[in-house]
């Protein structure tokens, strides 16, 4: 199968791109990815591409990269470690600059989730490591959503996950994306025998996963609030969230209602992709945002139990 990567894999080009990646392959069919027309790609496109290439290889498909000389953003793709993460080494005729405050190259989500969270949050909000620094709230929010989403990838997907992110300093947007090549949300519910999941669509399963205390793992290590609060924090910051899993898509934006739909052409994304955008200026008090997200999800009591806190 030859896949000509579209010129723009941005907000509007992402879903058609995912549909391309989800096309079924015959056994041992070779995949040729043609980069010659690619001009722009977001972290979501990069993370989804890497997760899919790794899946194809796992399924014994040969994957080749063509049109690289004609690709006008080859240097950017190299800086984002697209090829490196796919196991392809290319010569780099340039010097890498500091990525801090600008982007997070594609990175494999390993078991050191807390360390990964520190590295990535430090990259998105440089200086925020210091409590009291102006970037500390963005640092903490990024760390929270990264670690909770990465925990989901590791605990539920049964596949491999990848993360990437970018900061647009002019507009003040922070874009985060995590993609895995696992079984998808619906299958993870069905495999543990939740009766209510039998007749669900992928989109309905994503919506269900956002409800508090719904988890395919359960106690003692998983209480099913991670994705709920990630979505809640996105709402509190008036940000944007998209989750793609199987055929389903769920979007949260500044509109009051969340939106569900299917990928075009009955395509399937094999795994789960989580994409978030925050506006830096809306992340001013992380603890207040977390408190509001917990209240909104019904996870805080109206009258608290007698909890003893000491300074």
């Amino acid at each position, binding site marked *: 199968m030859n896949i000509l990567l579209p010129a723009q894999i941005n907000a509007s080009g992402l879903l058609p791109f995912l549909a391309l990646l989800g096309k079924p392959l015959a056994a041992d069919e070779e995949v040729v990815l043609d980069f010659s027309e690619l001009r722009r790609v977001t972290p979501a496109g990069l993370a989804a591409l890497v997760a899919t290439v790794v899946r194809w290889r796992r399924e014994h498909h040969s994957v080749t990269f063509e049109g690289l000389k004609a690709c006008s953003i080859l240097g950017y793709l190299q800086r984002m470690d697209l090829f490196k993460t796919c196991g392809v080494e290319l010569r780099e005729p340039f010097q890498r600059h500091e990525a801090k405050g600008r982007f997070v190259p594609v990175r494999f989500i390993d078991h050191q989730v807390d360390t990964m969270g520190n590295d990535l949050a430090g990259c998105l909000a440089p200086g925020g490591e210091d409590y009291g620094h102006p970037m500390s709230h963005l640092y903490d929010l990024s760390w929270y959503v990264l670690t909770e989403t990465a925990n989901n990838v590791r605990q539920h997907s049964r596949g491999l996950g990848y993360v990437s992110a970018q900061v647009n300093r002019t507009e003040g947007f922070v874009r985060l994306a995590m993609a895995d090549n696992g079984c998808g949300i619906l299958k993870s519910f069905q495999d543990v025998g939740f009766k209510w999941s039998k007749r669900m669509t992928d989109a309905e399963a994503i919506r269900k996963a956002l409800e508090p205390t719904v988890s395919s793992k359960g106690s003692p290590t998983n209480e099913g609030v991670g994705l709920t609060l990630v979505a809640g924090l996105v709402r509190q910051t008036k940000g944007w969230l998209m989750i793609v899993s199987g055929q389903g898509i769920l979007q949260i934006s500044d509109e009051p209602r969340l939106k569900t739909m299917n990928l075009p052409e009955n395509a399937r994304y094999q795994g789960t992709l989580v994409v978030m955008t925050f506006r830096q200026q809306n992340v001013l008090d992380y603890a207040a945002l977390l408190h509001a997200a917990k209240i909104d999800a019904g996870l*805080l009591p109206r009258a608290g139990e007698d909890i003893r806190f*000491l300074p």
Partner: protein
Amino acid sequence: MNLELSIRELFGSHLADGAKAAEFRMGRIEPYVEICPQIILDFTGVRNANSSFINAMVAGLIEQHSVKVLKKLVFKGCNPSIQVLIHAAVELGVRKTAGRVNA
């Protein structure tokens, strides 16, 4: 004798792994609930945590020992976001003991 545990010394300043928290609760806190009059969980120096970690540690304790365990527990040195997470974990534990959660 009271039991005081420095979470920062044991896990560092960022707490993300619910599995580690559950293991710690079962091995280092639960055996002392009936023995010690007071259990102090010292979060001094902990910058951030996620719900997975705090729920596995705190909600699990309430689930095992009922809400009465709060009379023995003291949470020390918590910054505002850790306090939010502990409040929510306690609420989750209370709901679980009341059978209102089926996670």
